[in-house]
């Protein structure tokens, strides 16, 4: 069992949690992830390390409540325990030898990209960070990023923070202005990672994207986390989760990502219903009807 030491909302959908996991804290590196299970019946859910403190023996995760598990997790608090917490999984992001980097976070991806920015900063690289959010209310981790970056750019889809735009527009400007990046790390929605990769490709800038396919075991066994990279499928849990953005087939990733949309939606509604009946809010969820979602083909 793994103790939750701290839980706080970063915005209405996103929670930051500090978990007591001393052995993992000693070893986990930027880009690696953990898998957790809330309880005996829970799913194994992959979440990226947002921060860690080897001395205090803690690992920090940041997650968005998108489905049954993350919604339930969001209602848990300090002092409670998680059934399982496995890691470090996946490979650390290759950051050695980088002098000028641009780290790009889309929405929640900001939290996942933060450790890379921090590591590069601590290892003498000059780091620019570009983050994009739907609206100003969702902006997070500005202070943390400020501390590890030379310049920080925050844009919103609706312009509510005074800077309307997309992360790719900022990146294009920076490149044009001669920023001369030798690495771009883009983490966020698939479409954003795709657009960033398309932008950096003609400039020949090495681009890492962090893929988040469905996963079950996280040890290379089940094959559900396949990502098409170049002309082959690789297992994101053991070969990734970071891949060369210029080689990833993003359309394929989007398509594979929806395989379980129907049962996920069903489980989400069920969880919302249950949490609401326990008087715990978690945002949303439709009426539940008795359906057996197993046989349905999504899409």
């Amino acid at each position, binding site marked *: 069992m793994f103790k939750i030491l701290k839980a706080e909302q970063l915005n209405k959908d996103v929670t930051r949690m500090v978990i007591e996991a001393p*052995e*993992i804290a000693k*070893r986990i590196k930027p880009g690696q992830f953990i898998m957790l*299970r809330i309880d005996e*019946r*829970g*799913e*194994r859910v992959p979440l990226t390390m947002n921060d860690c403190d080897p001395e205090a023996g803690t690992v920090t995760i940041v997650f968005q409540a998108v489905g*049954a*598990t993350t919604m339930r997790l969001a209602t848990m608090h300090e002092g409670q325990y998680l*059934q*399982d*917490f*496995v*890691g*470090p*999984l996946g490979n650390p992001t290759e950051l050695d030898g980088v002098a000028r980097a641009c780290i790009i976070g889309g929405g929640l991806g900001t939290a996942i990209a933060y450790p890379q920015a921090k590591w590069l900063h601590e290892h003498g690289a000059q780091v620019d960070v570009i983050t994009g959010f739907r609206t100003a209310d969702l902006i997070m981790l500005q202070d943390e990023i400020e501390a590890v970056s030379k310049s920080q750019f925050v844009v919103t889809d609706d312009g509510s923070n005074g800077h309307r735009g997309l992360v790719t527009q900022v990146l294009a400007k920076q490149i044009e202005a001669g920023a001369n990046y030798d690495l771009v790390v883009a983490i966020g929605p698939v479409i954003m990672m795709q657009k960033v990769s398309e932008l950096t490709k003609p400039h020949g800038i090495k681009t890492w994207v962090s893929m988040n396919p469905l996963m*079950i*075991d996280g*040890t*290379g*066994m*089940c*094959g*559900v986390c*396949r990502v*098409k990279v170049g002309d082959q*499928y690789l297992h994101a849990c*053991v070969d990734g989760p970071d891949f060369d953005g210029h080689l990833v087939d993003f359309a*394929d990733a989007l*398509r*594979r990502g*929806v*395989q*379980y949309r129907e*049962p*996920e939606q*069903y*489980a989400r509604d*069920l969880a919302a219903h249950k949490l609401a009946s326990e008087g715990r809010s978690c945002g949303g969820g439709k009426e539940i009807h008795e359906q057996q*979602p*197993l*046989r349905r*083909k*999504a*899409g």
Partner: protein
Amino acid sequence: MPCVYKVNKDNEKVVMPELDPETRSHNFCEVALGYNEEQAQQEARRCIQCPKKPCMSGCPVGVPIPQFIEQVALGNFAQAYELVHRANTLPAVCGRACPQETQCEGKCTRGRKGQPVGIGRLERFVADWATAHPDQVMCQDAQDPQAEAATQSSDASLTESEDLDGYRVAVVGSGPASLTCAGELAQRGCDVSVFEALHETGGVLTYGIPEFRLPKTLVAQEIHKLEDVGVEFKTDVVVGKLYDIDELMDECGFDAVFVGTGAGLPSYLGIEGEGANGVMVANELLTRVNLMKAYQFPRFDTPVYAGKHCVVVGGGNVAMDAARTARRLGAEVTLVYRRGLEQMPARAEEIHHAVQEGIQLQLLTNPVCILVDDDGWIDGVECVSMQLSEPDESGRQSVVEVPDSNFVIDADMMVIAVGSKTNPLIAKTTPGLEVTSRNLMVVDEETCATSKPGVYAGGDAVSGAATVILAMGAGKRAAAGIADYLKMKQAS
């Protein structure tokens, strides 16, 4: 050895009760229900107590088959159990899962004319009987000097118990190889810790072989027995990620390590369309269903997709389990295998059960391409017919495609079960550990010692995908190898 009971001359095995195929193809309850005492005695009396015991030469761990069967025939079930258990620590599992037709029963004299003695079923019976009568097993053992004497030969390790007091051994993985090795070493006084990557112990017994063939409570019982003798289980530890082998030996202070990490990586067909939605490897289907209990979704959180018509590719136990699982999730299932029925590596009983449950066998057929619809979902499987070639000098027949025989099987789900490979993680993170080009660990046959001092390995990680009983045999040899190594260490 003269028979002390009246031989049952019936040429067929006593029928074992099973759930009827229609009912069971909609649930996950165990299919074969096992003998009752009377049926077991009746079946045991089919054994003619051959002086040369040919059956025993077919058992990789040397279960004293005629002796235990004699005890069953006489109604001395506790003694029968003791005899079996000395040679095989997981009889409830092996009685259900061993490919008996190629092992013990394949060598049985009675099989020459009619069916062999149901050795596996009897082994299962005594194991289940012992579980149901725990007190009787204990006292029988202590009271009956004759049974003791009969087992002495197969039991050198127990008499030496405690001789390895205080040594610490790390066991990586918790499949049958690891469980056997851990049990043997714990009995000899070692302080054993088992590290398992998943959240459940048992390896393939837990995540691979389905509930309807091997109830998970049985596996849990075996693990509890090991806990009772002091083995410590640590789940959620991926060795090579959280600790590597060197750290286990240097920093964590283990005197020796056993690696029983299995062969869990899936193989693919490498044909077009394999990335389509609705196409999965057997490991995905089986882990969702067995490990994550997806067949109980939404009571358990993990869902599983099941189509209307599922094509399963392969002919081994894994393919059979995948097919029968898909069937239970509600799909019509066609199993496609490139060779003929005789060449199918799956246990005969599983093939028989699968057919009973309505699974279509499409033999001498090979998939060449997966058809994909506009949404990226599988829409069908294009296959080609195969034929067996003339046997070569060694008598082996290969299969070749029949030209222009392509046809399409309609499908909205496909499960690939064409073998598995070893996870390279341990090899990559352990300097000095010799592996083959296929990442199989290279070991000394007799002791299971790897190229790295103090590190032993066995089971599927060494042999590639094999069987439960072979993995157990390796675990046992490794335990003996480790014991010798530790004693040498002690002496020096």
